[in-house]
């Protein structure tokens, strides 16, 4: 699998049962598919979980991934978001150094990227930032590496635009 293969966001609904997550994770590792990120949580219907998997691969590989996911007994529905228009969001928390002149600079960068400072300490800020993966990457890029104390990202969540609805 090449790393520059097209990136796909796959959304799926699955039974909210013990072991369901490991069936999906196991499938990806057993068949050698890439996982860039995987997020999962229960939906408004507590019997269902919604999972967003960011992966990459050729059309043939993505087709196999979708088929293999559908084959899992616990998986109710699978959708390749890239088949249509969709919105992608990811949340990132970044703890940065904020001392002296840095303090003002960090505040400014945060504003430019429409982030929010959610925790303030003597020497640091914690910034909350939401957006597409590339936006979060851009924010990290724009910071002085030495200023970054810690980052944590949720991985992408995706949803179809307009009438594209993934529901049972």
């Amino acid at each position: 699998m090449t790393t520059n293969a097209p990136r796909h966001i796959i959304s799926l609904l699955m039974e909210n049962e013990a072991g369901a997550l490991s069936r999906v994770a196991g499938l990806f590792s057993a068949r050698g598919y890439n996982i860039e990120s995987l997020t999962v949580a229960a939906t408004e219907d507590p019997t269902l979980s919604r999972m967003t998997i960011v992966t990459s691969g050729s059309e043939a590989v993505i087709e196999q991934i979708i088929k293999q996911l559908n084959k899992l007994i616990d998986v109710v529905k699978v959708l390749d978001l890239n088949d249509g228009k969709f919105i992608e969001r990811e949340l990132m928390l970044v703890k940065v150094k904020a001392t002296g002149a840095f303090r003002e600079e960090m505040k400014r960068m945060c504003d430019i990227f429409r982030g929010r400072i959610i925790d303030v300490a003597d020497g640091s800020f914690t910034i909350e930032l939401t957006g597409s993966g590339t936006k979060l990457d851009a924010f990290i890029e724009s910071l002085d590496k030495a200023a970054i104390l810690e980052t944590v990202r949720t991985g992408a969540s995706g949803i179809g635009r307009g009438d594209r609805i993934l529901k049972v």
Partner: protein
Amino acid sequence: MADTPKNSSSKPLSSKPITGAEILIRCLHEENVEFVFGYPGGAVLHIYDAIYHQDKFKHILVRHEQAALHAADAYSRSTGKVGVALVTSGPGATNAITGIATAYMDSIPMVIISGQVPTYAIGEDAFQECDTVGITRPCVKHNFLVKDVKDIAATMKKAFYVAASGRPGPVLVDIPKDITADLCKFEYPESVSLRSYNPVTKGHLGQIKKALKLLAEAKRPMVYSGGGVVLGDASAHLIKLIQSMGIPITSTLMGLGGFPASDEKFLGMLGMHGTYEANMAMQECDVLLAVGARFDDRVIGNTKHFLSNPRTIIHIDIDPSSISKRVKIDVPIVGDVKSVLADMNELIETEKASNQFVQNTNALAAWFKQINAWRSKKCLDFAQSDEFIKPQYVIQKLHEVTKGEAFVTSDVGQHQMWAAQYYKFNDPRRWINSGGLGTMGVGLPYAMGVQFAHPNAQVACVTGEGSIQMNIQELSTCAQYHLPIKVIMLNNRYLGMVRQWQEFFYENRYSESYMDSLPDFVKLAEAYGHVGMQITKPSDVEGALKEAFDMKSRFVFLDFITDQKENVFPMIQNGKGLSEMILASDIGAEDL
């Protein structure tokens, strides 16, 4: 369980509460289970006590859990029914893994019940605890851990349904010991529906028409059938289709018997050790219809080489993920092979007047002329010897003596390939072997499962001295249940297939492929109360086989001392293409 089967449709079968173990047994009764292959242990003691109190199914006590799985698997392969195995927690479950993975790779419907430590001890590294659901997850179609006695019946119903429907496969139900002692009323759901699992069985009619048209217009049409035809009980429909179209057909190892080998349109098995004519026709055809087969590496060899000849491929399969997995398919038809083939036959019938789906007879005649030219290579001919017993000769004689009607199980290796090549199977479910996982040691427990299912049938286990020793302990089970199996052991004192590869690709460095200190198999068989025979001369082969099969009520172990250096031909080397076969005649097998 998110989708509990509707209560309205379930029938109350007991008014007073019974134990989880008793509920489990009642579920097996409801599913009309005839045999449970198993081995007791701590975590399943309640279940075994409940078995003691019933006589609707027979429990078969094996000598190792792996054999229980293989026997249940072969019971299923030879009958089409769901095989059932029962093992205890921890080592019972881990011993079963090879059997589960074997069934999974060949899509065999099975329900495996495993005991588990009590719910309150799970996760505490209790005695004989292992994460059975976790360990088996990659090699089952689905599995369940039952955490409440109230869920046993619904879970068992689901297990049988999932195992047998769609692309079949093994389903494991892990039941903690305390759950089997808890009390609950027994209600068995009559139906089951899962919102997340609805296999497509009916093929798309538009695609089916397109397929028939392509086949009719083809100059060099070809059918390639696989294990799906056998598992889907689609043999009769396939035969009808081939007869009405008059086109050539080949089969995978797993599909043998799905179409009669004696028919002139049958080109033999294809693949790594397939016939010259089957592999050449597969490579050269212009329209290929794949039925319940999956283009695996042992069948089409190098995909690049395979695709170097242009052809249109139609693929019928119950499992969408089998389609376009290794080879891009032009006309996919997702559905049950039996249903799709029936639709094809019906369309041909109804469109007779329109001549829409009629083959071009001139093109077909030219195609068969080419095929017959390939056939004239006589790729399965072998040099007979007066001195050494040729393994191929033993299989030929086995075919003659059993009139081609025996159930033949095999282990894995050279003997497996010879059995596949020289025992001409005319009926489905007669050829029982591990194709996908290639599990050495299946042969004897497979023969047990078949013999239980078909007590009056001739059952031959074709094996080698390597494979047989992987489950040799089952000679004891065969004695306990008086199974009149005939073991046909082709004893070449080598791990033959390993030796063959070492000869071809490692300059005769026979690293660890010679087996020293073999037991006296005749005495070993006799020690278990069986009949043992050793055959060393070619002239004795037929007589020994006749003598063995005449002992209708005895287990007979035939130790054929065969030519040590015989190889399996044709052969496609790893990574090579279908038309790049090595034939016995190319190499002069005698000189090797």
